[in-house]
């Protein structure tokens, strides 16, 4: 069975998503454990895959036995197996955490919620693993439609935000479809490897240029590269907390992955950085996005909205790494896919706990009572915030380090300055919260009892609500320390294995 392992994860999620409503028709409580089991299975398969890929080289699987370029090829190389593992791991922790959130925020909707989440992950894994441009579009649609659902299921304003995302997302997907249409016309193929071999012979063709531009714009919208980010803040803010925690670490990263895959592994570094200055464009837009996102984040009064703008800035890091089009920039971009997934995942989970405990996440209303009420959540927040600022030994420091090296290699001092200034802006908006949470005494009039609440279990719970709300947050954020000190292994064993040719 091992020859088909690239296809296993998408199929596992697809199968579970379809059978979940049937399984849970009588017992809605079954939805949660079934989802968790499927998600955990995906981690096992993806980690198995990545070890095989690293040991034996890329794995391919041809659907239905049809060989490319006619049939659909699934392919796992170090890049795709790495991103798949990141996505599945972070999804597992978010889903583990989700029970206490969804029963509070979207009561009675657990079955559709988990079915959508599984479809979403099916789409994400399919996009990562496929080696076929059109198949990628199909998974992109599954992924996006499930994503609109996950967001729209939230509070009053959520359907509007989701509809806006749907319009822009569909425009993006259409652009992408048009782009591969152009490619198909001139190359006659949809297989990525095949197209890659044909393209060098027809570089002068305007259709190729058009295809590249269309794909870039399409993916730019999905990835929320400045100025195509308009859908993002509302969508992340009004979605249910679990959806935000699911969509923020995964959604835009998938688009970034597609951009990396298509720019560097289909069109080729030579073409996208020299024949057409598309990577320069990405780098400059990202640099502006980094500053814009950080400044806007400072101006927000609601934590989830702040995190949403911060996401725009962080996407800029990945975009900047892509745009540098040199090995160090590439390392920075791919590493930041991992780092940002874990940082944003943990921050949105913190926001979720905050909302569950106090019913709100307005920054102005945070005060030091929280460090008693949610000591572990706040410790997790502190670690994630330090990582966002980019202080060693957390993971964020090393994203900054590789991107800075990449910017210097490129000889571009503006980018270097942007990376460093952004880390200071991050410090401003995160320390603003840390100060409140640890230093600003709560208003006296409430008369709240600030002592740790009654202890349960072994006493580690202190004021936190349940273990399933506390442990995932703590694991995700403290693993930022591990990722930070172990980053050289990841870089050497995984990312450097597949530096695109021509960098």
């Amino acid at each position: 069975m091992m020859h088909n392992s690239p296809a296993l994860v998408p199929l596992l999620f697809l199968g579970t998503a379809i059978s979940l409503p049937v399984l849970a028709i009588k017992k809605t409580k079954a939805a949660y454990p079934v989802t968790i089991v499927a998600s955990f299975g995906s981690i096992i398969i993806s980690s198995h895959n990545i070890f095989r890929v690293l040991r034996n080289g890329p794995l391919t699987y041809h659907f239905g036995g049809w060989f490319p370029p006619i049939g659909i090829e699934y392919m796992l190389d170090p890049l795709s197996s790495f991103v798949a593992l990141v996505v599945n791991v972070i999804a597992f922790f978010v889903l583990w955490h989700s029970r206490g959130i969804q029963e509070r925020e979207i009561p009675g909707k657990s079955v559709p919620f988990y079915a959508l989440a599984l479809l979403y992950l099916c789409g994400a894994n399919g996009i990562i693993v496929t080696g076929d441009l059109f198949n990628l579009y199909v998974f992109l649609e599954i992924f996006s439609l499930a994503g609109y659902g996950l967001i729209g299921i939230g509070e009053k304003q959520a359907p509007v935000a989701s509809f806006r995302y749907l319009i822009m997302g569909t425009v993006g997907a259409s652009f992408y479809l048009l782009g591969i249409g152009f490619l198909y016309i001139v190359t006659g193929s949809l297989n990525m490897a095949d197209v890659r071999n044909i393209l060098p012979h027809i570089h002068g063709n305007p259709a190729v240029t058009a295809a590249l531009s269309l794909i870039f714009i399409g993916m730019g919208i999905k990835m929320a590269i400045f100025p195509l980010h308009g859908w993002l803040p509302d969508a992340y803010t009004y979605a249910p907390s679990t959806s935000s925690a699911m969509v923020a670490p995964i959604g835009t990263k998938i688009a970034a992955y597609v951009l990396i895959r298509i720019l560097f592994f289909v069109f080729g570094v030579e073409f996208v950085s020299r024949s057409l200055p598309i990577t320069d464009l990405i780098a400059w837009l990202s640099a502006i996005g980094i500053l814009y996102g950080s400044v806007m984040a400072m101006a927000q009064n609601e934590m989830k909205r702040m995190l949403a703008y911060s996401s725009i800035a962080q996407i800029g890091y990945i975009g900047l790494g892509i745009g540098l089009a040199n090995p160090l920039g590439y390392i920075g971009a791919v590493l930041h896919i991992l780092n940002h997934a874990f940082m944003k995942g943990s921050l949105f989970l913190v926001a979720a706990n905050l909302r569950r405990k106090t019913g709100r996440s307005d920054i102005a209303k945070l005060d030091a009572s929280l460090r008693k009420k949610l000591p572990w959540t706040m410790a997790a927040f502190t670690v994630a915030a330090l990582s966002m600022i980019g202080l060693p030994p957390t993971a964020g420091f090393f994203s900054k380090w590789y991107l800075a090296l990449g910017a210097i290699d490129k000889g571009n001092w503006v980018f270097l300055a942007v990376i460093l200034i952004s880390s200071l802006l991050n410090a401003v908006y995160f320390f603003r919260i840390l100060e409140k949470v640890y230093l600003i005494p709560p208003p006296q009039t409430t008369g709240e009892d600030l002592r740790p609440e009654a202890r349960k279990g072994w006493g580690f719970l202190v004021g936190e609500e349940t273990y399933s709300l506390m442990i995932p947050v703590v694991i995700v954020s403290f693993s930022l320390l591990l990722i930070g000190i172990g980053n050289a292994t990841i870089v050497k064993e995984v990312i450097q294995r597949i530096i695109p040719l021509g960098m």
Partner: protein
Amino acid sequence: MTSPEIYSSTLPFYAVMVSLIAMPLILLSSRHVILREFWTLAASIAKFSLVFLLLPGALAGRVAGFTFWEISPGIALALKADQFGVFFALIASGLWILTSIYSIGYVRGLKEHKQTRYFASFAVCLSATIGIAFAANLLTFVFFYEILTIATYPLVIHKETKIAVSAGRKYLVYTLTAGVLLIAATAWTYRTAGTLDFRAGGLFGDASFSPAAITALFLLFLCGVGVKAAIMPLHSWLPAAMVAPTPVSALLHAVAVVKSGVFGVVRVVGFVFGPALMHQFDLNIFLATVAGATIILASLLAFRQDNLKHLLAYSTVGHLSYIVLGAALISPASLVGGLLHIANHATMKITLFFCAGAIYVRHHKEKISELDGIGRVMPWTMGAFTLAAIGLAGIPPVNGFISKWQLGLGSLQAGELLPLAVLVLSGLLNAGYFAPIIFRAFLKTPTVPYEQGEASPAMVIPLVITAVLSLLLGLDPDLFFHFHRLAVAVSGSILGGIGQ
């Protein structure tokens, strides 16, 4: 130049980690005062012993090295207990023991809140400081430097008042900005030199630079390490940070944090750029000018302070630049003088801060104008204060004289008279701002009679020890720790054998 023999050893690792291991223990024993204080003391004694074990090897020119693992392809998180590192680590860890004892007296005397956070942060700070001392390359240095920044923050804002919070903000703005500039400089160095390993005499090898590029790189480094070294105009976080509890000011803002800054300056001058590049592009003249100006201006500003701790802060700013000046002159004696001043200023300034804290705990007085006649009720404290102040003014036989003498000698070796003039003037200014305090304490009669006497022995004994230590190190700079021999060795290695 022969490179020193490097042998693999876990000692530097344990020396760094011992207080990091103590931190969770301190946190877990938050409800047991005695246990918490025991961990702090045990960690500080263990740390000092471990560092002390490295001293014989360093004196013999054998360097203990330890590599954690790679933290970026080609760059390891690595420790190297070279002579300079051992020198600095000895001072920081040795004074931590005294500060721990003093801290216990201080927090008990004031019934401070959140003592657990206080002692835990302190332990992390010391781990980071020893990490800085033993860092074998620039990235490791940056790594611990940033950890030190963050670990100090909870101590600066310890009082949680509005002033403390705004001082904390100021501290973060300065130090985090410095941190990112240092990262930029490190990344640039790596791309230019291909290595980040500190090497006595400079790590750039034969990399070529345009004058503009090397000046820019030097400025990045200087801002990066200069904030913690409180070089003017990057100093203003330091007086603001005096809102922290006095033991914090004593150990961190007179020894560990600020000395990490000047330690960084010496590392950058001697082990990154090296004397040849410094001379070739006149960077040393620039650095000496900044340092000289800082010495004079800080001493003048110290005159205006009525708050004792603020006066000491400005005095610290001035004395830190003695060390920077020693590094900038790059002559055999000036380097020895600068390095010795790291140790000498540490023992003297920590004494003064300890005295300020003792006065505050016992009499709740922070202003100099309120200290009339306090020497009569606190003879030990004010005696120690006087001794240290004499030393800072550079008057023999206290150790401040030794470093100043070497610095003066060094400026003559470099063929410059102006630095010598700065040193002499600064000595006079030091005497000028300390004399009124001593005069007031001993000769004026108190307006309101004092109700209390000396502070608790846990506070008085450490400050007497540091004062006596200052005196003994002034009589024999090689006493106990061989500071002088170490400094001569470091100076010789930087200058590539043309030293003493």
